[in-house]
């Protein structure tokens, strides 16, 4: 069952990720990215990480992608005469080929490392592994300090975003 769901999901996920890179217009890339996020939420559910899957949908597919869409549309409205600039200048063939070679090299190395690693059979997971209750209990006992620091980080990021977007550049 897990096999039956995982491989199509992974394939769609990779296709969407390629769509982000290959598409020329940013709005299409953003839509591909939303698809990828949703597929990844499915992958997380397969791995019994229900809490993270829900967070993935709420934070990534919800908040972050809305922010991306908002900025793309905002800038597109302003830059009416800049349409040609939206087309990424990806005509530098040498650069693209070199980047592709570098990426292929990294992928080859990663896959060979994963292949060489010897993994034992996995530990048996309990029935309620990855539920909100389990994760929440650990989050608020063992990891309560990082959790609070994360909230401060988000507050600082929010203030920083407001200041940066508001300030007039002279």
């Amino acid at each position: 069952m897990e096999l039956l769901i995982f491989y199509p999901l992974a394939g769609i996920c990779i296709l969407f990720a390629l769509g982000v890179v290959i598409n020329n217009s940013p709005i299409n890339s953003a839509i591909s990215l939303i698809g990828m996020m949703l597929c990844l939420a499915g992958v997380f559910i397969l791995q019994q990480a229900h809490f993270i899957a829900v967070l993935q949908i709420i934070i990534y597919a919800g908040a972050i992608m809305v922010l991306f869409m908002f900025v793309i549309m905002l800038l597109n409205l302003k830059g009416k005469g800049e349409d040609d600039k939206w087309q990424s200048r990806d005509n530098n063939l040498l650069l693209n080929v070199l980047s592709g070679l570098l990426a292929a090299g990294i992928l080859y190395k990663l896959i060979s490392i994963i292949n060489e690693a010897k993994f034992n059979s996995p530990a048996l997971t309990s029935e309620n592994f990855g539920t909100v209750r389990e994760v929440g209990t650990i989050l608020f006992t063992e990891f309560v300090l990082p959790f609070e620091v994360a909230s401060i980080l988000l507050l600082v990021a929010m203030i920083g975003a407001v200041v940066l977007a508001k300030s007039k550049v002279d």
Partner: protein
Amino acid sequence: MNLETVPLTHYLFLSATLFVIGVAGVLVKRNAIVVFMSIEIMLNAVNISLIAFDRYLNLHDGQIFSFMVMCVAAAEVSVGLAIIISLFRNKPTTNLDDFNIMKS
């Protein structure tokens, strides 16, 4: 747990592939917003490995860590897009090649 579970290595392969697609996006694309999206792909790829190892070891630490990664991603995107907006106000383009004001 039934026998037909996906091996850990396949999750890691998916993670590696997505990470490399993100790297290629950062290298190839010249649009600042799409570069940000590629960075998001890389962060998500790391989350996959974290959660795969998490289930493999029957721990919850990886899930907590991927939660932190999500927080950092949200902060990074909000600040980054604000920077892009203020750059756009300065110079109406999001092409990264046009922003070389730091170069002497």
